[in-house]
Structure formats: C-alpha cells, structure tokens
C-alpha cells in the first residue's frame, strides 16, 4: 500500500512543485515591468455566481491599426510569408488552415491619459455630455469610445529581452507572451463582386491596391490575473453587485472604477500587487 501511495503522492507533488518553481523563478530578481492599469484594461472576469474567486482579464485596444506588424515582422517571428500576397492563389494560401497561430512575445504601450492619435484612429477621448439628450445615441457611442483600453500592442518578437531593450520604460511598456496570427488583406476589397471580380474592377478603374499581409494579436498569455483575497473586497466595493455581469471583451460603458497595479516578474508572469478604488474621483 505504501508503494502505491508514494506513486500517487509523487505525481501530485512533483506536478505542483514544477508549477510553483515557475512562479518562484518569475519572482526572482527585479520585476520586468510594474504598470498601473484601470478597469478599462483589467476587466472583471465573468465567472458566474457560484464562485468566490476573482480574476481580472487583460484587455487591449483591439481596433487600433498596427502598420508595424507587417510581412517582414511576421517573417521575423517564424511565419512563412514566401509567397507574394498578390500572387495567384495567395489568398487561398494565406487564409487556409495551414497557417496556425504562433506563440511569441508582445510589447504593449500603456498611455494613462490616452494616445495623442486617438482621434485619427476613430477613438474619441472626450467624455460625453450626459445632458445632451438629443444626441443620446451618439453620446453613448462616444462614451464607449472614451473607455476603450489604453493599452496597445506596439511591437512583437521572439526575444523578450530585445523587446525590453527597445522599450525600456518599465512603467509604460509591458512585455508578455502572446498568440498572434497572420492574415491577408485584399487591397481591393470584395464588395458584391467577389474577390476576383473586385480586383478586375479595381484594375480597370485604376484604384487597384495590392494585397498585403498583416499580423493580428489573438491573445496574451496569461490573459487572466488572479486577484489576491485581500484585494477582492476593494474591487467588489468599487463595481458593486452588477459588476460581474458585463462581458470583459465588450468596451467599458462607464468611467473606470478601480485601478490595478500589475507587476510582471522576470519570467514575464503577472501578479496584482495593488488595487485602488477610483469611484470618488
């Protein structure tokens, strides 16, 4: 019996010890980044009512344009981009199932006051006027825009140290593992003419735009961060009873109600080191 017990115990203990060793290694040395984010970027994960644990889901601006994430960048992280995007059959090649998402490292920039180019990107930074009832619908849309995450992917690479060297401000730039994929963008659009028809029409009308490859950030690893027991009360007090019901992926519909200080260790794993309510602001 003792031998069987030892086998079971050994498997369980070794697996848990391996996980804890990764955590210990991450905590060793100076943290890679310490950033204070708000509810815009750290959304309460919807876990249902039958759980008492709490995690926050990291959100970034998914609508921002990323012209830097081009074919050369995709190639540098291991995607095979040898076929010209405008070549015959390229659309099928690049949009097929052969191009699986890859793991790499991402650099994110955080701008607490908003990015200067947000207006040009379609993101409105001004707060809406609640009294403007005539334009209630437009105001609601502006409001959503105003509370979009102020965290943007700005760089990608397979070497996290090189990314950190390129973006040394540890309070403004996060470097984290992530998942990216490649997509082909048909320069002429498809419209009602289909891809080939659209291209022919664009060539005839002189508006032809060559197809291009671009990268897409699918996820960050990990995307959920556990809130320590002592800090859960602060978050719950800030968001109230209904706080759990909004989907983390939808834009925040109100001003952020809490801010969270996240520390990324030397192993690029995050942990929450501080939570503060900002409802009284």
């Amino acid at each position, binding site marked *: *019996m003792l031998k*069987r*017990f030892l*086998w*079971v*115990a050994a*498997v*369980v*203990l*070794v*697996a*848990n010890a*391996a*996980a*804890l060793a*990764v*955590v210990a290694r991450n905590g060793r040395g100076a943290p890679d980044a310490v950033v204070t984010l708000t509810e815009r970027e750290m959304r309460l994960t919807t*876990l249902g009512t*039958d*759980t*008492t*644990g*709490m*995690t926050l889901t990291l959100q970034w601006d998914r609508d921002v344009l990323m012209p830097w994430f081009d074919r050369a960048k995709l190639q540098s992280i*291991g995607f095979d981009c040898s076929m010209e995007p405008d070549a015959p059959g390229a659309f*099928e*090649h690049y949009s*097929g*199932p*052969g*191009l*699986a*998402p*890859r*793991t790499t490292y991402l650099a994110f920039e955080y701008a607490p006051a908003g990015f200067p180019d947000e207006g040009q990107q379609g993101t409105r930074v001004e707060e809406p006027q609640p009294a403007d009832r005539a334009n209630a619908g437009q105001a609601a849309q502006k409001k959503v825009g105003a509370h979009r995450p102020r965290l943007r992917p700005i760089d990608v690479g397979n070497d996290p140290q090189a990314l950190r060297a390129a973006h040394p401000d540890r309070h403004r730039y996060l470097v984290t*593992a992530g*998942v990216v994929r490649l997509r082909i963008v048909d320069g002429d659009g498809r419209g009602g003419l289909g891809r080939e028809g659209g291209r022919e029409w664009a060539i005839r009308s002189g508006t032809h735009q060559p197809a291009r490859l671009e990268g897409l950030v699918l996820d960050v*690893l*990990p995307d*959920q*961060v*556990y809130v*320590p*027991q002592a800090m*859960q009360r602060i978050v719950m007090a800030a968001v109230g009873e209904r706080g759990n019901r909004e989907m983390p992926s939808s834009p925040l519909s109100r001003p952020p109600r809490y801010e969270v200080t996240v520390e990324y260790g030397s192993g690029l*794993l*995050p*942990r929450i080191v501080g939570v503060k309510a900002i409802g009284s602001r």
Partner: protein
Amino acid sequence: MTTKSTADAAMTREQAQQRVDQVHAFRAELAQLEAEGIVLLAPDQSRVLRTHHDDLLAQLAQRFDVDRTQAEKQMSLGMRIASLFGAVALSAAVFLFFYRFWGLLSVPVQVVLLTTAPILIGISVEVAARREKTLYFAWLLALVAFASFVLDLNIVASIFNLPPSPGGFLAWAIFAFVFAYTYRLPTLLLLGISCAGIWVAAILTSLTGVYWPALVMRPENFIVAGALALVASAFHSRRDEEDFAFIYRFVGWIAVLMPFFFLSEWGEMSYLPLSGIAARRLYDVLGFVVGAGVIYVAIRRQWAETMNVGALFLVLFLCLKLYDWCWDWMPRYLFFLLIAGVAIGLLAVLQRMRTGAIRHR
C-alpha cells in the same frame, strides 16, 4: 488437470470472467450434444467434470467476485453505470465545492487543499479496493481522484497566473496510469492514453512554434501519438495482457486514422513539403490504402475492435470523398445510389478478405 492449476494465480478479473463464461458455454453445448445423442459421458466422467467446474466456479467467485449467472451480469452492468454516474456527479461536486469557497481561502490554504485532495482520495481508492473485489467503488473513487488532480493543476495555474501548458496532460496521464495499472481499471487507462496522446501532439505542435492549443491544426502529430499507442499495445499483447492491449489498439488506431479526414480536406495542414493540393491528393490515396490495410491486419490478427474502427473509418472516408468529388455535379439520386453501390462493393471486398484470412490461418 486440477482446479488449482486452471485458476491461475496471475489471472485478472476479466480473464476469470471469461473462464466462467467458457464453462457455462461448455455445459450448455454438452447438454445439447447429449440431448441429440451425439455424446454421452459415463456417469463417473460426468460427475468428475461437474465437480471440477463447480469447484472452479466457486473458487473464481471467491477470488474475483465474478458474475456466475446472466442476472448477475446484468446487475454488474447496472452497477458499472451507477458507478460512472456517481463518479461524474462526485467530480462535479468537488469542482463546484472548491469554486464556491476558493475566494474565501488564503493562497497557501488553497494550495495545500488542492494538493492533498487527490492524494487523500487516492488513498481511499486503496481502502475501497481492499474491501471490495469487484472494484466498483475503487473505480468511482479513482475517477474522482483524477478529476480532483485536474482541478488542482488548473486552479494552481489560475492562482499563480500561469499560461496554459501541455505539461498538465503529462502529469494527468501518469496519474491515470498509476491507478490503471495498479488496479487494472480500463477507464483510467483510456484517460491516461488520451492525456498522453494530447501531450505528445501538443509538444510536437509547440516545437514548431505553433500555439499548442491549436494542435488540431497539425493532425500528423496525432499519427505519431497513435503509433506510440500501437507500440504499447504490441508490448501488452506480448505480455498476454489482452484487456489493456485492446484499449491501446482502439485509441491508437483512432488517433492514426482520424487525421486523414483533416489532411485529405486541408492539405495545407501537413508537414510534408508539398503544395496543399498535392498533400490533399496524397492523403486521399493514403486514406484508402491505410484504411484497407488496417482492416486486413485486423482480420488476420482477429482484432475485433480494430476491424470495427477500420471499417467505420473506411466507410466515412469514402462518403466524405464521394461528397467532395460528386456532390456538386451529380444528381442526388445517383449520388446516393453510388454510396449504396460502394457500400455493397465494400461488403464484398471485406467478405473476400475475411475468407482469404481464414484460409491463410
């Protein structure tokens, strides 16, 4: 031949049950032959035989708690189903119980609880196995122990913000294998092989830089995992552990054959240095060749489960290919007529292969 020698010390419960079934079949056939006047044993011979079988059945019943009648067999099936439901419900209760209270506990307490739960439930498996030879409770508790270990690693990863890792599947596989081999539990073996297969496929996927949860986009990795399961099956067959060899073969062939469905549709998923269309055509051909080969081997080796997997694969693969090739242009009635014709043709081919294999033996 003595009763002692026939009830082998190394016999498993499945082998004991097979022996019991064999004795019942023999008695029924002997009674039939006697009724038809073909065989008539002398009273002494008949008594010796009956005593021998009665002793054997009693011994096997005592050692292995085997089912001696059809009614007992049906009861056993009911108990197995009840155990499975119990295990699923108990595992759900463990999951939900922990999720209900984990936020109220400090991190060290959470880790201690999570780590000790599978170990303690594992000990209870041993206690149950000692008290009950049929192992229904041991099986139920082993499944709950496995579920609690899955919960353990998931929650630990969640608490410490660890990204998803294929390593968990290796740990779960080893854990399941420990119970499967210690108590000869086929369900745990199935779980172990599945977890090990996912781990192999995930590791191979991540070696290529692809995000490992996207492992289905690299189907050839499953062929490797399936081939390893088949090697393990051969190892068990050689050791005369047919109950486990059967499970390895079953899972192994499924893992080997399933990727053909994907690769013959999306050749771009292949590692082969071919264009998508070329890889697709290659896997079209390989699908039929491998499917037929599996059936041939299964018939020759008398592997019923492999035969079923191979035949099902071949029929589904053929339907898929006919759909690809003919659906767009062929009248529907003709398409289904074609399917029916192919099914009949397949039946004839299998019949010939079966006859050939029997002649070969």
